[in-house]
């Protein structure tokens, strides 16, 4: 197998930290598995019985791993119902687009456990009664050829899967953008007068599910919903620290931030992704201190879950900002990227995002200024104006990031406005475009 085309990424599994975990319960095997090896580790594909799969999804409490954490069972039930009413077979779309430049977990999963994802596709298709499925992956990583070959190794008569490469852009993985692209249009979000679960690919009911969600489903079908709920089941995170190679970490709920990120120290952590939330990292004594609008300070001992962090885990990015970096510089850079990636189709997004990016660019510049409060007010107002007012949730996520940075880096903004800067001027550490292709390595 040719491994030279994946972005630089290491994988690390903390799954064996729990006593009962076996290889068959993990998402990431230490080396890529072909179909034969996959079956040796995980066993055969479980029964493709719709009622059985639906019940497993429901009782496990499985929720989406692609960003919005929506309950998978509810979406599957909605697709089934829409298909019944329309009298047509639905389509399943496995979303492995991972357009977010900082994230690597979906690509690592597709590379290491392609058959777990394909098992999940088969199970989801059976659950909703689909007779067609697509697996969408980001172009430029060699995944099309690799996964086509993986799919060929499968002998089962389950749903046929078409593997497609989507453009390497932030918006490509948004569900209506995927539908548009699969229908022969541009990979851009489009206005949906009816939701995708009713009117997706070819105008028919469509289940869009993140590839990691589908891999979870494949494990739940084997080990049962009770196992999944017990806290032994793992999920994937992309961990970044300064400029180092990202690590994809597999960890069970309750794992501490320190253990998960392996980071010694930092001033803040970006949770979820570029649509996520900056949380200040503090000493144990000040942990849990509310620093503003729903944002709590955390420490290395805080366990990683949406409940304990108080913010959504999104697509599982955990980026630790070291003390010698500037959160305003990072945020300005990400906002600029997000504004440029906006499809520019919707007025509020087209007008609001570039203004927010420019205003953050001002905050990131240490220079004496008297208009700091004005900039903050503008940013808060624009964040409010773009939220909920587009064909997709890109502006909502962008506003979330900006708001959290205003809170987490309030002291830095104050210092900058007095011409002082606590971090040495450095280029931003978080990537805003696809990294150059190079060797993929596995560790531990």
């Amino acid at each position, binding site marked *: 197998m040719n491994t030279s085309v994946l972005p630089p990424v290491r994988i690390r599994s903390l799954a064996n930290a729990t006593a009962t975990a076996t290889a068959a319960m993990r998402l990431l095997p230490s080396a890529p598995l072909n179909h034969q090896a996959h079956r040796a580790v995980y066993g055969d594909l479980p029964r493709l019985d719709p009622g059985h799969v639906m019940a497993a999804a429901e009782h496990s409490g499985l929720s989406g791993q692609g960003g919005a954490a929506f309950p998978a069972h509810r979406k599957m039930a909605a697709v089934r119902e829409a298909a019944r009413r329309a009298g047509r077979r639905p389509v399943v779309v496995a979303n492995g687009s991972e357009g977010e430049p900082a994230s690597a977990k979906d690509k690592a999963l597709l590379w290491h456990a392609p058959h777990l994802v394909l098992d999940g596709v088969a199970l989801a298709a059976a659950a909703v009664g689909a007779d067609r499925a697509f697996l969408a992956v980001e172009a430029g990583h060699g995944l099309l050829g690799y996964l086509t070959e993986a799919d060929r190794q499968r002998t089962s008569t389950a749903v046929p899967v078409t593997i497609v490469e989507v453009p390497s852009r932030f918006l490509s993985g948004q569900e209506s953008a995927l539908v548009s692209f699969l229908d022969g249009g541009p990979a851009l*979000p*489009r*206005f949906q*007068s009816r939701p995708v679960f009713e009117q997706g690919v070819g105008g028919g009911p469509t289940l869009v599910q993140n590839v990691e969600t589908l891999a979870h489903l494949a494990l739940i079908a084997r080990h049962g919903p009770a196992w999944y709920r017990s806290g032994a089941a793992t999920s994937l995170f992309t961990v970044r620290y300064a400029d180092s190679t990202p690590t994809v970490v597999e960890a069970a709920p309750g794992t501490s931030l320190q253990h998960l990120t392996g980071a010694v120290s930092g001033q803040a952590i970006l949770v979820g992704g570029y649509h996520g939330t900056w949380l200040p990292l503090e000493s144990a004594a000040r942990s849990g201190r509310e620093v503003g609008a729903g944002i709590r300070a955390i420490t290395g001992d805080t366990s990683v879950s949406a409940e304990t962090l108080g913010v959504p885990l999104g697509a599982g990015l955990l980026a630790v900002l070291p003390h010698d970096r500037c959160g305003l510089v990072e945020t300005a850079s990400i906002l600029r990227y997000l504004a440029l990636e906006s499809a520019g*189709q*919707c*007025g*509020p*997004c087209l*007008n*609001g995002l570039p203004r927010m990016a420019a205003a953050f660019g001002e905050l990131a510049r240490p220079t004496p200024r008297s208009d700091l409060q004005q900039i903050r007010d503008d940013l808060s107002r624009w964040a409010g*104006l773009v939220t909920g*007012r*587009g*064909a997709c949730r890109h502006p909502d996520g962008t506003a979330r990031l900006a708001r959290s940075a205003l809170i987490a880096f309030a002291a830095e903004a104050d210092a900058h406005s007095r011409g002082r800067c606590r971090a040495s001027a450095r280029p931003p550490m978080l990537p805003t475009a696809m990294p150059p292709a190079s060797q993929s390595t596995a560790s531990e």
Partner: protein
Amino acid sequence: MPEPTTITLRAAVDWTACQGHGACADLLPEVVSLDEWGYPILQERPVPAEARRRARRAVSECPALAFLLKR
């Protein structure tokens, strides 16, 4: 013929089509105002019964076919 008032209608916009002409806000100030860039801000609440006729006009007079009513 008067419509049954039991069906609630809410204003909606196809953001990819809306050009910020503002005709909807002129016709339906009860539920539509304009932001600082001229794009509509929609109220969550349903279109009041007495404004339904104007709401339908807003749909047909939106030059971009972007203004919609949802049940």
